[in-house]
């Protein structure tokens, strides 16, 4: 732990002790803090914590536990948080397969679940639930934007690839929903795969004019490092997950110029975002990622609902969450009827600024975009 983090933690602990007032609400955060996916969970946690720190006297008791990216562990933690910690709200899960394991039973027990990241299609459609809110996106959304933008770039023969798990299938489905060209090839890789030589050989032999990938976390780093040296130089288009601040420093210049889509970007021009980016850099000494922005928005949504209603009155609190009266770092924020965001999706490019790789907005793929699964949701 860096000295700054230690100092920040110490300050938090002291701060918590000096407030010593009864907590109004308990939030249980189950997120990935160890293993290869830890970068994402740490960012969600830090973004969430930052929003609480900036709010000052917030009355939230935050309990954080590491799920190690294991579904069975996440289920156990969720049970413990509901039974022993008496959590009113659960949040924090990064991975769709973990969300599918935890969310349905949680919301059925009259506990709110606010997703700061995963948005599997099942929970947006037929299995939507009044107690489930997604503050990030439905999984397909950014991939749909990538498909849409591939058309604008004139790509006609794209090779598409994603890991074989719920978010991976959502990604390819989402891309294909808007992409109008031909597919040069379609591949599923293993979750956590580290060697992409076989896939790169397929891409080389496919005669594609472009490549769409969804490889979050370390998978994207491995792929880009190997792609760079392979002699294949087709343009890459992707959703922002594979090219955000958590992985860009490790990818290095291999990532320069990659086009990716996101609902957020560090250079997004609004006051809340400028304040968030500056405060995050100040507190943690690094640039925030989109995951951090989602954690930050999730905390602010909870705070806004607490200002309107007490969590013991579930209907009033649910209505306050649904209203989403908070200032999002994305600019405007609104829930559709299936409790998933209606939002603008931007097109970004990876650039180097002051020696740091980051993203810059170069266009807009969708205005006020909503997911297609809402049609199957009865709410």
């Amino acid at each position: 732990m860096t000295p700054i983090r230690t100092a920040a933690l110490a300050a938090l602990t002291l701060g918590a002790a000096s407030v010593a007032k009864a907590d109004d609400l308990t939030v249980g955060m189950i997120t990935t803090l160890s293993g290869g996916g830890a970068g994402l969970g740490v960012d969600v946690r830090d973004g969430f914590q930052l929003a609480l720190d900036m709010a000052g006297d917030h009355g939230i008791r935050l309990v954080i536990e590491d799920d190690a990216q294991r579904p069975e562990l996440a289920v156990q933690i969720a049970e413990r948080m509901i039974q022993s910690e008496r959590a009113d709200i659960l949040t924090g899960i990064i991975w769709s397969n973990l969300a599918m394991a935890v969310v349905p039973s949680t919301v059925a027990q009259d506990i709110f679940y606010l997703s700061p990241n995963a948005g599997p299609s099942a929970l947006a459609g037929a299995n939507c639930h009044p107690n489930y809110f997604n503050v990030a996106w439905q999984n397909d959304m950014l991939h749909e934007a990538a498909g849409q933008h591939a058309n604008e770039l004139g790509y006609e023969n794209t090779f598409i690839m994603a890991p074989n798990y719920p978010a991976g299938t959502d990604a390819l489905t989402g891309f294909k929903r808007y992409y109008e060209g031909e597919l040069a090839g379609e591949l599923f890789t293993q979750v956590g795969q580290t060697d992409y030589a076989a896939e790169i050989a397929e891409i080389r032999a496919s005669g594609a004019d472009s490549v769409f990938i969804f490889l979050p976390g370390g998978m994207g780093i491995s792929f880009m490092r190997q792609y760079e040296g392979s002699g294949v130089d087709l343009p890459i288009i992707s959703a922002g997950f594979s090219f955000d601040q958590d992985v860009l420093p490790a990818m290095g210049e291999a990532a320069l110029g990659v086009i990716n889509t996101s609902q957020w970007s560090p250079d997004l021009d609004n006051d809340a975002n400028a304040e968030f980016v500056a405060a995050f850099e100040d507190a943690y000494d690094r640039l925030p990622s989109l995951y951090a922005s989602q954690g930050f928005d999730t905390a602010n949504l909870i705070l806004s609902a607490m200002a309107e209603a007490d969590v013991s009155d579930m209907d009033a609190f649910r209505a306050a969450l649904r209203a989403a009266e908070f200032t999002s770092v994305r600019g405007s924020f609104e829930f559709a009827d299936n409790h998933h965001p209606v939002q603008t999706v931007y097109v970004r490019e990876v650039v180097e600024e002051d020696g740091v790789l980051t993203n810059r907005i170069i266009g807009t793929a969708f205005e006020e975009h909503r997911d297609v699964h809402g049609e199957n949701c009865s709410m």
Partner: protein
Amino acid sequence: MTLALVLEQLLNGVQFGLMLFLMSAGLTLVFGVMGLINLAHGSLYMIGAFCCAAIAAVTGNFWLGLIAGIAAAAAAGALIEVVVIRRLYARDHLDQVLATFALILILSEGVRMIFGPRPLYLNVPDMLRGSVNLGIVDYSLYRLALIVFGLLVALGLWLLISKTRLGIQIRAGESDREMIAALGVNIRWLYTVVFALGAALAGLAGALVGAIQSVQVGMGEPVLILAFVVIVIGGIGSIKGAMVGALLVGVIDTMGRFLLPRFFATFLDTSQAMGVGAALASMLIYLLMALVLIFRPKGLFPAHG
């Protein structure tokens, strides 16, 4: 499907296999000589990669990083052997698994405390960047270098085991531990050296592979699982078995991922074929392991005849 694609996939399989060999050679040596199941072998791989990335970032020189990675992994291995492992030789395998699993958790968290949760940057050296033309196919120069490197290390290891005094002691240790101790060989020292040698090989693999993969906490565990498959197939304790097993696993895994989806695509639609093919390809090496266990329960080249 062209000849160039098949050739490229074969090269990929061989390269993958040789990197697996570096991992499994250390694992099988330690198991063969000391009878120890070392789950923390993957952590030594991770230490090699992290130290290589850190030193390469400071000095700007990959090769210095590589040496540092090997040295750090060997030093960590020797330290672990003296402090922890030495107490486990007389215990049963379950105790060893428990203790070395604890080591995985301790080392992973330790690395995270020092280097942070985000992956590190490690690039391939300038002289090995880009691709090279092999007649009908362009191939990554760095992967080609990995093949050469893997073969050189295998040759060096063979010379060490078959031609040197240390090699004789290692082979004797595999056959009869009490006897070589009775003959006056300092067995404690031998164990530390063998463990450090295995750790150095893991660190070397981690540093070499780290340049084209994500240098992150927990990177060693997926490779460790494959390395166990390799030594079970090859025969525990046998370097030759590790070599054959590693190449088999590398080539079969790569060719399975390459050919199975194509096979299913002949009678299923593309998306389905990709899903089924990918799922079956990931099982292929375990099926191979099961087959080997049925017909040659001691592996292809059992060390103790």
